[in-house]
Protein backbone atom coordinates (compact mmCIF):
# COMPACT_ATOMS: atom_id res chain seq x y z
CA UNK A 1 0.00 0.00 0.00
CA UNK A 2 1.59 3.25 -1.06
CA UNK A 3 1.48 6.53 0.79
CA UNK A 4 -1.48 7.87 -1.12
CA UNK A 5 -3.48 4.73 -0.48
CA UNK A 6 -2.57 4.87 3.18
CA UNK A 7 -3.84 8.43 3.35
CA UNK A 8 -7.06 7.47 1.59
CA UNK A 9 -7.48 4.57 3.98
CA UNK A 10 -7.16 6.86 6.99
CA UNK A 11 -9.74 9.23 5.55
CA UNK A 12 -12.05 6.37 4.64
CA UNK A 13 -11.78 5.08 8.20
CA UNK A 14 -13.02 8.45 9.37
CA UNK A 15 -16.09 8.02 7.17
CA UNK A 16 -14.97 10.02 4.12
CA UNK A 17 -17.01 8.64 1.21
CA UNK A 18 -14.96 10.31 -1.54
CA UNK A 19 -11.71 8.95 -0.15
CA UNK A 20 -13.27 5.51 0.13
CA UNK A 21 -14.40 5.61 -3.48
CA UNK A 22 -10.94 6.56 -4.63
CA UNK A 23 -9.47 3.78 -2.54
CA UNK A 24 -11.72 1.11 -4.03
CA UNK A 25 -11.55 2.41 -7.60
CA UNK A 26 -8.94 -0.16 -8.53
CA UNK A 27 -10.98 -2.96 -6.97
CA UNK A 28 -14.42 -2.29 -8.37
CA UNK A 29 -14.05 -4.25 -11.57
CA UNK A 30 -12.28 -7.13 -9.88
CA UNK A 31 -14.82 -7.34 -7.10
CA UNK A 32 -17.64 -7.27 -9.61
CA UNK A 33 -16.01 -10.00 -11.70
CA UNK A 34 -15.36 -12.13 -8.61
CA UNK A 35 -19.03 -11.84 -7.69
CA UNK A 36 -19.99 -12.60 -11.28
CA UNK A 37 -17.96 -15.80 -11.28
CA UNK A 38 -19.34 -16.95 -7.95
CA UNK A 39 -22.99 -16.07 -8.44
CA UNK A 40 -23.20 -16.53 -12.20
CA UNK A 41 -25.28 -13.61 -13.50
CA UNK A 42 -24.67 -9.94 -14.05
CA UNK A 43 -27.61 -8.44 -12.15
CA UNK A 44 -26.98 -10.35 -8.96
CA UNK A 45 -23.25 -9.81 -9.29
CA UNK A 46 -23.77 -6.03 -9.41
CA UNK A 47 -26.00 -6.14 -6.33
CA UNK A 48 -23.60 -8.34 -4.41
CA UNK A 49 -20.55 -6.30 -5.39
CA UNK A 50 -22.30 -3.18 -4.10
CA UNK A 51 -23.33 -4.97 -0.95
CA UNK A 52 -19.71 -6.02 -0.48
CA UNK A 53 -18.45 -2.45 -0.86
CA UNK A 54 -21.00 -1.19 1.59
CA UNK A 55 -19.94 -3.79 4.11
CA UNK A 56 -16.32 -2.88 3.49
CA UNK A 57 -17.14 0.77 4.05
CA UNK A 58 -18.96 0.01 7.28
CA UNK A 59 -16.19 -2.22 8.59
CA UNK A 60 -13.24 -0.21 7.36
CA UNK A 61 -12.71 1.65 10.62
CA UNK A 62 -11.98 -1.75 12.15
CA UNK A 63 -9.62 -2.88 9.42
CA UNK A 64 -6.37 -3.67 11.21
CA UNK A 65 -4.09 -3.74 8.20
CA UNK A 66 -2.58 -7.03 9.27
CA UNK A 67 -3.74 -8.66 6.12
CA UNK A 68 -3.39 -6.77 2.88
CA UNK A 69 -6.26 -4.53 1.89
CA UNK A 70 -6.92 -6.60 -1.23
CA UNK A 71 -7.16 -9.85 0.75
CA UNK A 72 -9.58 -8.17 3.10
CA UNK A 73 -11.67 -6.76 0.27
CA UNK A 74 -11.92 -10.11 -1.50
CA UNK A 75 -12.64 -11.89 1.75
CA UNK A 76 -15.67 -9.72 2.41
CA UNK A 77 -16.80 -10.01 -1.21
CA UNK A 78 -16.49 -13.79 -1.11
CA UNK A 79 -18.41 -13.95 2.17
CA UNK A 80 -21.21 -11.80 0.79
CA UNK A 81 -21.54 -14.01 -2.28
CA UNK A 82 -21.27 -17.32 -0.46
CA UNK A 83 -23.81 -16.13 2.11
CA UNK A 84 -26.18 -15.37 -0.72
CA UNK A 85 -25.66 -18.80 -2.24
CA UNK A 86 -26.33 -20.49 1.11
CA UNK A 87 -29.44 -18.41 1.53
CA UNK A 88 -30.68 -19.43 -1.88
CA UNK A 89 -29.90 -23.06 -1.29
CA UNK A 90 -32.01 -22.90 1.81
CA UNK A 91 -34.82 -21.29 -0.10
CA UNK A 92 -34.27 -23.48 -3.12
CA UNK A 93 -35.46 -20.75 -5.42
CA UNK A 94 -32.88 -19.78 -7.93
CA UNK A 95 -30.65 -21.91 -10.08
CA UNK A 96 -27.01 -21.11 -9.74
CA UNK A 97 -26.13 -22.50 -13.11
CA UNK A 98 -27.28 -19.53 -15.08
CA UNK A 99 -25.02 -18.74 -17.91
CA UNK A 100 -22.55 -15.98 -17.33
CA UNK A 101 -23.58 -12.89 -19.16
CA UNK A 102 -21.15 -11.81 -21.82
CA UNK A 103 -20.79 -8.13 -22.38
CA UNK A 104 -20.79 -7.74 -26.15
CA UNK A 105 -19.73 -4.13 -26.13
CA UNK A 106 -16.70 -5.02 -24.11
CA UNK A 107 -15.76 -7.78 -26.49
CA UNK A 108 -16.10 -5.60 -29.54
CA UNK A 109 -13.91 -2.94 -28.05
CA UNK A 110 -11.36 -5.53 -27.15
CA UNK A 111 -11.42 -6.93 -30.67
CA UNK A 112 -10.90 -3.57 -32.26
CA UNK A 113 -7.96 -2.74 -30.07
CA UNK A 114 -6.40 -6.11 -30.83
CA UNK A 115 -6.82 -5.51 -34.53
CA UNK A 116 -8.05 -8.99 -35.26
CA UNK A 117 -10.33 -10.06 -38.08
CA UNK A 118 -14.03 -10.80 -37.67
CA UNK A 119 -13.63 -14.59 -37.84
CA UNK A 120 -11.02 -14.62 -35.21
CA UNK A 121 -13.12 -12.33 -33.05
CA UNK A 122 -16.06 -14.70 -33.30
CA UNK A 123 -13.92 -17.65 -32.38
CA UNK A 124 -12.44 -15.76 -29.50
CA UNK A 125 -15.86 -14.91 -28.22
CA UNK A 126 -16.97 -18.50 -28.58
CA UNK A 127 -13.93 -19.62 -26.66
CA UNK A 128 -14.70 -17.24 -23.83
CA UNK A 129 -18.26 -18.38 -23.70
CA UNK A 130 -17.18 -21.99 -23.48
CA UNK A 131 -14.62 -21.30 -20.77
CA UNK A 132 -17.08 -19.23 -18.74
CA UNK A 133 -19.62 -21.98 -19.04
CA UNK A 134 -17.10 -24.58 -17.95
CA UNK A 135 -16.09 -22.49 -14.95
CA UNK A 136 -19.66 -21.88 -13.91
CA UNK A 137 -20.31 -25.62 -13.99
CA UNK A 138 -17.71 -26.21 -11.28
CA UNK A 139 -18.75 -26.65 -7.65
CA UNK A 140 -18.91 -23.27 -5.96
CA UNK A 141 -15.90 -23.79 -3.70
CA UNK A 142 -13.76 -24.77 -6.70
CA UNK A 143 -14.81 -21.89 -8.91
CA UNK A 144 -14.35 -19.46 -6.04
CA UNK A 145 -10.82 -20.73 -5.43
CA UNK A 146 -9.68 -20.58 -9.05
CA UNK A 147 -11.30 -17.19 -9.54
CA UNK A 148 -9.44 -15.77 -6.57
CA UNK A 149 -6.29 -17.23 -8.04
CA UNK A 150 -6.67 -16.50 -11.75
CA UNK A 151 -8.76 -13.37 -11.75
CA UNK A 152 -7.78 -11.71 -8.49
CA UNK A 153 -4.19 -12.93 -8.40
CA UNK A 154 -4.30 -14.14 -4.82
CA UNK A 155 -1.68 -16.53 -3.46
CA UNK A 156 -2.78 -19.86 -1.96
CA UNK A 157 -2.11 -18.50 1.50
CA UNK A 158 -4.27 -15.45 0.83
CA UNK A 159 -7.02 -17.64 -0.60
CA UNK A 160 -6.81 -19.79 2.53
CA UNK A 161 -7.36 -16.65 4.60
CA UNK A 162 -10.24 -15.54 2.44
CA UNK A 163 -11.99 -18.89 2.49
CA UNK A 164 -10.98 -19.63 6.05
CA UNK A 165 -9.56 -23.04 5.21
CA UNK A 166 -6.10 -24.66 5.22
CA UNK A 167 -3.70 -23.82 2.37
CA UNK A 168 -3.60 -27.53 1.50
CA UNK A 169 -7.31 -27.44 0.82
CA UNK A 170 -6.85 -24.47 -1.48
CA UNK A 171 -4.16 -26.32 -3.38
CA UNK A 172 -6.31 -29.38 -3.97
CA UNK A 173 -9.41 -27.34 -4.84
CA UNK A 174 -7.54 -25.37 -7.45
CA UNK A 175 -5.92 -28.43 -8.94
CA UNK A 176 -9.20 -30.34 -9.04
CA UNK A 177 -10.94 -27.36 -10.61
CA UNK A 178 -8.38 -27.12 -13.38
CA UNK A 179 -8.45 -30.83 -14.03
CA UNK A 180 -12.20 -30.67 -14.36
CA UNK A 181 -11.89 -27.72 -16.73
CA UNK A 182 -9.33 -29.59 -18.75
CA UNK A 183 -11.71 -32.52 -19.11
CA UNK A 184 -14.61 -30.33 -20.14
CA UNK A 185 -12.61 -28.18 -22.52
CA UNK A 186 -10.59 -30.91 -24.18
CA UNK A 187 -13.90 -32.24 -25.49
CA UNK A 188 -14.09 -28.96 -27.40
CA UNK A 189 -10.58 -29.08 -28.58
CA UNK A 190 -11.35 -27.51 -31.90
CA UNK A 191 -11.98 -24.25 -30.08
CA UNK A 192 -8.81 -24.40 -28.19
CA UNK A 193 -6.41 -23.23 -30.78
CA UNK A 194 -4.19 -21.75 -28.17
CA UNK A 195 -2.94 -18.99 -30.39
CA UNK A 196 -5.85 -16.88 -29.24
CA UNK A 197 -4.61 -17.06 -25.72
CA UNK A 198 -1.72 -14.88 -25.00
Amino acid at each position, binding site marked *: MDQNEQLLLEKAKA*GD*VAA*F*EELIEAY*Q*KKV*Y*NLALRIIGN*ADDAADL*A*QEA*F*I*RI*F*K*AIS*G*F*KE*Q*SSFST*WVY*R*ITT*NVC*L*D*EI*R*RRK*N*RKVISLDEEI*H*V*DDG*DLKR*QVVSDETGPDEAAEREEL*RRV*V*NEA*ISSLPVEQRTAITL*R*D*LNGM*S*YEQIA*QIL*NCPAGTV*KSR*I*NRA*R*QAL*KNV*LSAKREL*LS*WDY*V*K
Partner: protein
Amino acid sequence: MKSCADVRENISAYVDGELSADEKISFEEHINSCPDCKKELDEMMQIIRLCSNMPLQQLPEGFRDELHEKLTAVAARSKNIETIGKPRKIPHAKTFASIAAGILLVFIGGSIVRYGLLSGNLGAKNDAGNSYQLAEKSSETAADSGEDQHIAFSLNADSTEDGSAAAGIQSMDNGEANQSLTYKRSNDNNRSSSAKARSEYNALGVTETANCKSSEITIMADEPETAVETVTELASANNGAMTDELAGYSGVQDSSEDGNDALDGDETRIQLQMVFSQDDYKSFTNAVNDAFGAANVQIGPFITEDMTDKLNALIEQTEIYDNDIKELQKENSESNEKKIQKLKKEKEEIVRQIETIRLNSDFVTVQVNINER
Protein backbone atom coordinates in the same frame (compact mmCIF):
# COMPACT_ATOMS: atom_id res chain seq x y z
CA MET B 1 7.02 -36.94 -4.57
CA LYS B 2 7.32 -40.32 -6.16
CA SER B 3 4.16 -41.45 -7.83
CA CYS B 4 2.59 -39.89 -10.90
CA ALA B 5 -0.54 -39.26 -8.85
CA ASP B 6 1.43 -37.19 -6.34
CA VAL B 7 3.03 -35.21 -9.12
CA ARG B 8 -0.30 -34.50 -10.78
CA GLU B 9 -1.74 -33.28 -7.50
CA ASN B 10 0.98 -30.68 -7.49
CA ILE B 11 0.75 -29.44 -11.04
CA SER B 12 -1.29 -26.35 -10.20
CA ALA B 13 0.87 -25.47 -7.23
CA TYR B 14 3.95 -25.85 -9.43
CA VAL B 15 2.59 -23.59 -12.15
CA ASP B 16 1.40 -21.06 -9.56
CA GLY B 17 4.81 -21.00 -7.93
CA GLU B 18 3.44 -22.38 -4.68
CA LEU B 19 5.78 -25.33 -4.18
CA SER B 20 8.66 -25.19 -1.74
CA ALA B 21 12.18 -25.35 -3.18
CA ASP B 22 12.51 -29.05 -2.33
CA GLU B 23 9.11 -29.91 -3.74
CA LYS B 24 9.93 -28.03 -6.89
CA ILE B 25 13.16 -29.94 -7.44
CA SER B 26 11.57 -33.34 -7.01
CA PHE B 27 8.61 -32.27 -9.15
CA GLU B 28 10.89 -31.26 -12.00
CA GLU B 29 12.96 -34.41 -11.65
CA HIS B 30 9.85 -36.50 -12.10
CA ILE B 31 8.51 -34.46 -14.99
CA ASN B 32 11.78 -34.73 -16.86
CA SER B 33 11.73 -38.49 -16.61
CA CYS B 34 8.01 -39.12 -17.16
CA PRO B 35 6.52 -38.24 -20.59
CA ASP B 36 2.93 -38.86 -19.42
CA CYS B 37 3.21 -36.39 -16.59
CA LYS B 38 5.00 -33.95 -18.84
CA LYS B 39 2.07 -34.10 -21.26
CA GLU B 40 -0.36 -33.63 -18.40
CA LEU B 41 1.61 -30.63 -17.21
CA ASP B 42 1.58 -29.05 -20.67
CA GLU B 43 -2.16 -29.46 -21.00
CA MET B 44 -2.78 -28.08 -17.56
CA MET B 45 -0.61 -25.10 -18.33
CA GLN B 46 -2.75 -24.37 -21.37
CA ILE B 47 -5.86 -24.45 -19.22
CA ILE B 48 -4.27 -22.23 -16.60
CA ARG B 49 -3.15 -19.75 -19.20
CA LEU B 50 -6.56 -19.76 -20.76
CA CYS B 51 -8.31 -19.08 -17.46
CA SER B 52 -5.96 -16.40 -16.26
CA ASN B 53 -6.28 -14.57 -19.57
CA MET B 54 -10.05 -14.38 -19.55
CA PRO B 55 -10.97 -10.73 -19.96
CA LEU B 56 -12.73 -8.97 -17.12
CA GLN B 57 -16.31 -7.94 -17.71
CA GLN B 58 -17.01 -4.22 -17.64
CA LEU B 59 -18.89 -2.81 -14.69
CA PRO B 60 -22.59 -2.48 -15.47
CA GLU B 61 -23.73 0.97 -16.45
CA GLY B 62 -24.56 3.14 -13.48
CA PHE B 63 -22.71 0.88 -11.06
CA ARG B 64 -20.55 3.65 -9.65
CA ASP B 65 -23.40 6.13 -9.30
CA GLU B 66 -25.61 3.62 -7.59
CA LEU B 67 -22.83 2.65 -5.21
CA HIS B 68 -22.10 6.29 -4.52
CA GLU B 69 -25.70 6.89 -3.47
CA LYS B 70 -25.71 3.89 -1.20
CA LEU B 71 -22.42 4.85 0.42
CA THR B 72 -23.58 8.39 1.03
CA ALA B 73 -26.75 7.10 2.64
CA VAL B 74 -24.77 4.71 4.84
CA ALA B 75 -22.38 7.46 5.89
CA ALA B 76 -25.28 9.73 6.82
CA ARG B 77 -27.04 6.97 8.72
CA SER B 78 -23.98 5.86 10.62
CA LYS B 79 -23.57 9.39 11.91
CA ASN B 80 -27.08 9.20 13.27
CA ILE B 81 -26.46 5.81 14.76
CA GLU B 82 -23.41 7.07 16.58
CA THR B 83 -25.53 9.76 18.15
CA ILE B 84 -28.28 7.37 19.06
CA GLY B 85 -25.89 4.77 20.33
CA LYS B 86 -24.89 6.99 23.20
CA PRO B 87 -27.25 7.80 26.03
CA ARG B 88 -29.10 10.98 25.33
CA LYS B 89 -28.45 13.99 27.39
CA ILE B 90 -31.05 14.73 29.97
CA PRO B 91 -33.27 17.39 28.48
CA HIS B 92 -32.30 20.92 29.20
CA ALA B 93 -33.68 22.28 32.44
CA LYS B 94 -35.68 24.87 30.52
CA THR B 95 -37.75 22.00 29.24
CA PHE B 96 -38.68 21.28 32.78
CA ALA B 97 -39.60 24.84 33.50
CA SER B 98 -42.25 24.62 30.88
CA ILE B 99 -43.67 21.53 32.44
CA ALA B 100 -45.38 21.71 35.78
CA ALA B 101 -43.25 19.97 38.36
CA GLY B 102 -43.52 16.26 38.12
CA ILE B 103 -41.83 13.20 36.98
CA LEU B 104 -40.25 12.94 33.64
CA LEU B 105 -39.71 9.53 32.27
CA VAL B 106 -37.34 9.52 29.41
CA PHE B 107 -37.19 6.33 27.45
CA ILE B 108 -33.90 6.08 25.79
CA GLY B 109 -32.07 3.58 23.72
CA GLY B 110 -28.77 3.91 25.42
CA SER B 111 -25.68 2.00 26.27
CA ILE B 112 -26.83 -0.06 29.17
CA VAL B 113 -24.05 -1.80 30.90
CA ARG B 114 -25.72 -3.83 33.54
CA TYR B 115 -29.20 -4.92 34.46
CA GLY B 116 -30.32 -5.81 37.96
CA LEU B 117 -33.79 -7.16 38.32
CA LEU B 118 -36.49 -5.31 40.11
CA SER B 119 -38.91 -8.12 39.97
CA GLY B 120 -36.68 -11.10 39.45
CA ASN B 121 -39.21 -12.14 36.91
CA LEU B 122 -38.01 -10.76 33.65
CA GLY B 123 -38.05 -14.38 32.71
CA ALA B 124 -35.69 -14.37 29.83
CA LYS B 125 -32.19 -15.43 29.21
CA ASN B 126 -30.24 -12.67 27.69
CA ASP B 127 -30.71 -14.16 24.27
CA ALA B 128 -34.40 -14.56 24.39
CA GLY B 129 -35.49 -11.58 22.45
CA ASN B 130 -32.96 -11.37 19.70
CA SER B 131 -34.69 -11.47 16.44
CA TYR B 132 -33.26 -13.33 13.53
CA GLN B 133 -34.34 -13.53 9.99
CA LEU B 134 -33.93 -17.16 9.49
CA ALA B 135 -33.06 -19.32 6.61
CA GLU B 136 -35.16 -22.43 6.92
CA LYS B 137 -32.63 -24.89 8.16
CA SER B 138 -31.10 -22.81 10.89
CA SER B 139 -33.53 -23.68 13.61
CA GLU B 140 -32.76 -27.35 13.13
CA THR B 141 -29.12 -26.65 13.60
CA ALA B 142 -29.78 -24.59 16.67
CA ALA B 143 -31.77 -27.37 18.26
CA ASP B 144 -28.88 -29.79 17.94
CA SER B 145 -27.22 -28.61 21.07
CA GLY B 146 -29.06 -28.45 24.36
CA GLU B 147 -27.01 -25.48 25.38
CA ASP B 148 -28.38 -23.44 22.57
CA GLN B 149 -31.96 -24.40 22.93
CA HIS B 150 -33.04 -21.09 24.29
CA ILE B 151 -31.85 -19.56 21.08
CA ALA B 152 -33.66 -22.02 18.93
CA PHE B 153 -36.66 -21.26 21.04
CA SER B 154 -36.53 -17.56 20.48
CA LEU B 155 -35.93 -18.16 16.82
CA ASN B 156 -39.15 -20.06 16.61
CA ALA B 157 -40.96 -17.48 18.61
CA ASP B 158 -39.78 -14.60 16.49
CA SER B 159 -41.96 -14.63 13.49
CA THR B 160 -42.57 -10.94 13.30
CA GLU B 161 -39.93 -8.35 13.09
CA ASP B 162 -41.22 -5.75 15.41
CA GLY B 163 -42.34 -6.75 18.84
CA SER B 164 -40.36 -9.91 18.42
CA ALA B 165 -38.44 -9.16 21.55
CA ALA B 166 -41.57 -9.20 23.59
CA ALA B 167 -42.81 -12.32 21.88
CA GLY B 168 -39.60 -14.11 22.70
CA ILE B 169 -39.73 -13.12 26.31
CA GLN B 170 -43.30 -14.07 26.81
CA SER B 171 -42.82 -17.43 25.23
CA MET B 172 -39.91 -17.98 27.50
CA ASP B 173 -42.10 -17.33 30.47
CA ASN B 174 -44.42 -20.08 29.45
CA GLY B 175 -41.91 -22.51 28.13
CA GLU B 176 -39.19 -22.29 30.70
CA ALA B 177 -41.13 -22.02 33.91
CA ASN B 178 -40.16 -18.47 34.73
CA GLN B 179 -36.51 -19.16 34.73
CA SER B 180 -35.23 -15.80 35.73
CA LEU B 181 -31.96 -14.50 34.66
CA THR B 182 -30.18 -11.31 35.39
CA TYR B 183 -28.09 -10.04 32.58
CA LYS B 184 -24.64 -9.61 33.89
CA ARG B 185 -21.41 -8.86 32.19
CA SER B 186 -19.78 -11.60 34.22
CA ASN B 187 -22.05 -14.18 32.68
CA ASP B 188 -19.31 -15.18 30.32
CA ASN B 189 -20.00 -18.84 29.76
CA ASN B 190 -23.49 -18.20 28.70
CA ARG B 191 -22.38 -15.38 26.47
CA SER B 192 -19.66 -17.26 24.73
CA SER B 193 -21.83 -20.25 23.97
CA SER B 194 -24.50 -18.05 22.54
CA ALA B 195 -21.89 -16.10 20.63
CA LYS B 196 -20.72 -19.36 19.15
CA ALA B 197 -24.21 -20.31 18.19
CA ARG B 198 -24.67 -16.91 16.62
CA SER B 199 -21.54 -17.14 14.59
CA GLU B 200 -22.84 -20.48 13.36
CA TYR B 201 -25.98 -18.78 12.25
CA ASN B 202 -23.93 -16.15 10.53
CA ALA B 203 -22.04 -18.90 8.76
CA LEU B 204 -25.37 -20.19 7.55
CA GLY B 205 -26.11 -16.81 6.07
CA VAL B 206 -28.49 -15.62 8.73
CA THR B 207 -28.92 -11.91 9.00
CA GLU B 208 -29.45 -10.69 12.49
CA THR B 209 -31.67 -7.69 12.93
CA ALA B 210 -31.60 -5.16 15.72
CA ASN B 211 -33.91 -2.32 16.58
CA CYS B 212 -33.21 -0.01 19.46
CA LYS B 213 -36.30 1.48 20.95
CA SER B 214 -36.69 4.83 22.56
CA SER B 215 -39.54 7.00 23.72
CA GLU B 216 -40.33 9.72 26.20
CA ILE B 217 -42.95 9.96 28.93
CA THR B 218 -43.67 12.81 31.31
CA ILE B 219 -45.70 12.33 34.46
CA MET B 220 -46.94 15.08 36.73
CA ALA B 221 -46.94 14.39 40.46
CA ASP B 222 -46.90 16.43 43.64
CA GLU B 223 -44.58 14.44 45.81
CA PRO B 224 -41.54 13.08 44.02
CA GLU B 225 -40.49 10.74 46.79
CA THR B 226 -43.87 9.03 46.84
CA ALA B 227 -43.97 9.11 43.06
CA VAL B 228 -40.66 7.25 42.88
CA GLU B 229 -42.14 4.49 44.99
CA THR B 230 -45.23 4.33 42.83
CA VAL B 231 -43.22 4.25 39.63
CA THR B 232 -40.90 1.62 41.04
CA GLU B 233 -43.84 -0.52 42.09
CA LEU B 234 -45.50 -0.16 38.72
CA ALA B 235 -42.27 -1.02 36.95
CA SER B 236 -41.83 -4.06 39.15
CA ALA B 237 -45.41 -5.17 38.55
CA ASN B 238 -44.74 -4.96 34.82
CA ASN B 239 -41.53 -6.98 34.82
CA GLY B 240 -39.34 -3.93 34.56
CA ALA B 241 -35.70 -4.26 35.48
CA MET B 242 -33.70 -1.50 37.15
CA THR B 243 -30.35 -0.85 35.63
CA ASP B 244 -27.59 -0.74 38.19
CA GLU B 245 -25.72 1.94 36.42
CA LEU B 246 -28.20 4.71 36.88
CA ALA B 247 -29.86 3.56 40.08
CA GLY B 248 -27.26 5.54 41.99
CA TYR B 249 -28.39 8.75 40.33
CA SER B 250 -31.40 8.94 42.58
CA GLY B 251 -31.82 12.36 44.00
CA VAL B 252 -29.10 13.86 41.89
CA GLN B 253 -29.17 17.61 41.57
CA ASP B 254 -29.91 18.74 38.11
CA SER B 255 -27.31 20.90 36.55
CA SER B 256 -28.04 21.91 33.05
CA GLU B 257 -25.27 21.59 30.59
CA ASP B 258 -24.37 25.19 30.05
CA GLY B 259 -24.97 26.13 33.67
CA ASN B 260 -26.72 29.40 32.98
CA ASP B 261 -30.22 28.25 33.59
CA ALA B 262 -32.33 29.95 36.21
CA LEU B 263 -33.60 26.66 37.50
CA ASP B 264 -30.16 25.42 38.38
CA GLY B 265 -30.15 23.89 41.83
CA ASP B 266 -33.73 24.94 42.47
CA GLU B 267 -35.12 21.54 41.71
CA THR B 268 -34.35 18.09 42.90
CA ARG B 269 -34.51 15.76 40.00
CA ILE B 270 -34.56 12.11 40.73
CA GLN B 271 -33.46 9.87 37.94
CA LEU B 272 -34.18 6.21 37.51
CA GLN B 273 -33.37 3.98 34.64
CA MET B 274 -35.08 0.71 33.89
CA VAL B 275 -35.81 -1.63 31.04
CA PHE B 276 -38.93 -3.37 29.80
CA SER B 277 -39.83 -5.77 27.11
CA GLN B 278 -41.89 -4.02 24.47
CA ASP B 279 -45.21 -5.46 25.63
CA ASP B 280 -44.41 -4.74 29.24
CA TYR B 281 -43.53 -1.21 28.28
CA LYS B 282 -47.04 -0.77 26.94
CA SER B 283 -48.69 -2.13 30.06
CA PHE B 284 -46.34 -0.05 32.17
CA THR B 285 -47.39 3.16 30.43
CA ASN B 286 -51.02 2.18 30.86
CA ALA B 287 -50.42 1.57 34.54
CA VAL B 288 -48.66 4.92 34.88
CA ASN B 289 -51.60 6.61 33.17
CA ASP B 290 -54.00 4.97 35.59
CA ALA B 291 -51.98 5.77 38.67
CA PHE B 292 -51.26 9.42 37.98
CA GLY B 293 -54.20 10.23 35.76
CA ALA B 294 -53.93 10.61 32.03
CA ALA B 295 -53.90 14.41 32.34
CA ASN B 296 -50.68 14.20 34.31
CA VAL B 297 -48.92 11.92 31.88
CA GLN B 298 -47.36 12.89 28.60
CA ILE B 299 -46.16 10.10 26.39
CA GLY B 300 -43.66 11.02 23.75
CA PRO B 301 -43.21 9.26 20.43
CA PHE B 302 -41.96 5.70 20.53
CA ILE B 303 -38.90 5.66 18.33
CA THR B 304 -37.43 2.53 16.86
CA GLU B 305 -33.96 2.85 15.45
CA ASP B 306 -32.75 0.25 13.01
CA MET B 307 -29.38 -0.91 14.27
CA THR B 308 -29.17 -3.89 11.95
CA ASP B 309 -26.48 -2.47 9.73
CA LYS B 310 -24.41 -1.28 12.63
CA LEU B 311 -24.76 -4.67 14.31
CA ASN B 312 -23.78 -6.62 11.24
CA ALA B 313 -20.85 -4.33 10.58
CA LEU B 314 -19.65 -5.01 14.13
CA ILE B 315 -20.10 -8.75 13.66
CA GLU B 316 -18.09 -8.51 10.47
CA GLN B 317 -15.39 -6.74 12.45
CA THR B 318 -15.15 -9.52 15.01
CA GLU B 319 -14.70 -12.01 12.19
CA ILE B 320 -11.84 -9.94 10.89
CA TYR B 321 -10.31 -9.89 14.35
CA ASP B 322 -10.65 -13.64 14.63
CA ASN B 323 -8.89 -14.03 11.35
CA ASP B 324 -6.09 -11.65 12.29
CA ILE B 325 -5.62 -13.33 15.65
CA LYS B 326 -5.49 -16.73 14.04
CA GLU B 327 -2.91 -15.47 11.60
CA LEU B 328 -0.69 -14.15 14.36
CA GLN B 329 -1.08 -17.31 16.41
CA LYS B 330 0.16 -19.37 13.49
CA GLU B 331 3.46 -17.55 13.56
CA ASN B 332 3.90 -18.42 17.21
CA SER B 333 6.47 -15.76 18.02
CA GLU B 334 6.76 -13.88 21.28
CA SER B 335 6.40 -10.43 19.84
CA ASN B 336 3.06 -11.52 18.41
CA GLU B 337 1.78 -12.47 21.84
CA LYS B 338 1.37 -8.83 22.81
CA LYS B 339 -0.32 -8.01 19.54
CA ILE B 340 -2.68 -10.94 20.03
CA GLN B 341 -3.58 -9.75 23.52
CA LYS B 342 -4.16 -6.27 22.19
CA LEU B 343 -6.36 -7.54 19.38
CA LYS B 344 -8.30 -9.74 21.78
CA LYS B 345 -8.95 -6.75 23.99
CA GLU B 346 -10.12 -4.67 21.07
CA LYS B 347 -12.32 -7.52 19.92
CA GLU B 348 -13.83 -7.77 23.40
CA GLU B 349 -14.76 -4.13 23.19
CA ILE B 350 -16.56 -4.75 19.89
CA VAL B 351 -18.27 -7.82 21.32
CA ARG B 352 -19.42 -5.66 24.20
CA GLN B 353 -20.89 -3.18 21.74
CA ILE B 354 -22.61 -6.03 19.94
CA GLU B 355 -24.09 -7.32 23.18
CA THR B 356 -25.22 -3.82 24.06
CA ILE B 357 -27.03 -3.46 20.76
CA ARG B 358 -28.58 -6.88 21.12
CA LEU B 359 -29.67 -6.09 24.62
CA ASN B 360 -31.04 -2.71 23.67
CA SER B 361 -32.78 -4.36 20.81
CA ASP B 362 -34.48 -6.76 23.17
CA PHE B 363 -35.69 -4.18 25.61
CA VAL B 364 -36.99 -0.68 25.92
CA THR B 365 -34.74 1.35 28.15
CA VAL B 366 -36.32 3.84 30.51
CA GLN B 367 -34.83 6.78 32.28
CA VAL B 368 -36.92 8.40 35.01
CA ASN B 369 -36.35 11.98 36.06
CA ILE B 370 -38.33 13.32 39.00
CA ASN B 371 -38.57 17.03 39.65
CA GLU B 372 -39.71 18.60 42.87
CA ARG B 373 -42.20 21.35 42.48
